[in-house]
């Protein structure tokens, strides 16, 4: 999720809040937000995940001119190597946030990735599970650490039943 330029924009916050079904005015109404404790529009607590929009080479966003693994004429636009009947999938297993300082529209964040741990274990539903942790620190334009995110991904060896 590393990026040098994650602009915090009011419209983006509004769309994100809508997508989680949250009509709290502090996410879309600058006038109403002046009467709140923060005193300005703020993003919902999970908003920094949307830094994916500003991360170069983010693998879950189609790239102009390149094949995409979702469906078009065919069920997938990318021929997968024969995987020996695997059918495993990558999933998001855990997500943790620490909030250090407020964020508001007009801020421009920088996201820095830090290495995390890796481990594996046998799962009940998805075969062997391989876990990978990544840590992302978000700094604002003044160099203040605003959010620390810790994400754990898991790769299953077969379809989760």
């Amino acid at each position, binding site marked *: 999720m590393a990026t040098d330029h994650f602009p915090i924009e009011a419209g983006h916050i509004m*769309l*994100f809040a809508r997508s*989680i079904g949250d009509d709290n005015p502090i996410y879309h109404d600058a006038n109403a937000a002046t009467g709140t404790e923060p005193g300005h529009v703020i993003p*919902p607590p999970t908003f920094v995940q949307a830094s994916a*929009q500003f991360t170069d080479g983010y693998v879950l966003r189609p790239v102009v001119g390149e094949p995409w693994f*979702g*469906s078009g004429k065919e069920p*997938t636009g990318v021929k997968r190597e024969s995987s020996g009947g695997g059918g495993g999938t990558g999933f998001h*297993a855990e997500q943790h946030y620490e909030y250090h300082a407020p964020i508001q529209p007009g801020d421009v964040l920088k996201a820095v990735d830090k290495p995390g741990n890796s481990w594996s274990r046998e799962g009940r539903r998805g075969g062997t599970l391989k876990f990978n942790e990544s840590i992302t620190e978000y700094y604002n334009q003044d160099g203040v650490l605003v959010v620390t995110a810790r994400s754990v991904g898991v790769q299953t060896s077969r*379809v989760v039943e």
Partner: protein
Amino acid sequence: MPLSKANLSVGDQHSEQVVDNLTRTQIIQYAGASGDYNPLHTDEIFTTKVAGYPTVFAHGMLSMGLTGKMLTNYVGDGRLTNYGVRFVSQVWPGDSLTATATVEDIREEDGVSLVDLSVSTINQDGAEVVKGTATARIDD
């Protein structure tokens, strides 16, 4: 209204239904806003024919976001200091989710009053989909 120490007790609970009959459209809204365009969440043909799942399913981060709505409604805007979850089970179109926060501890750190919460979100069948913890600043 932010929570205050005087009115809180260990064991207090706050619950909200955070989505009723989750639609594929809402999952698409989340994909568009978050930037996670994984077809497993939005592309029925890919998900059933290539990935082998019965239908598309919600981003884990959508269920965390929905659960977070209950938290911010409970603790107040801008009050969270920590929020973390484990994604326990998949969330499918048509699911209705209820999120609950339970007060685990009320404490002070560096002169700031805090509440520690356990967080659990269940679907319409009572199966837990998200399990986590949160901490928020509270008034004295």
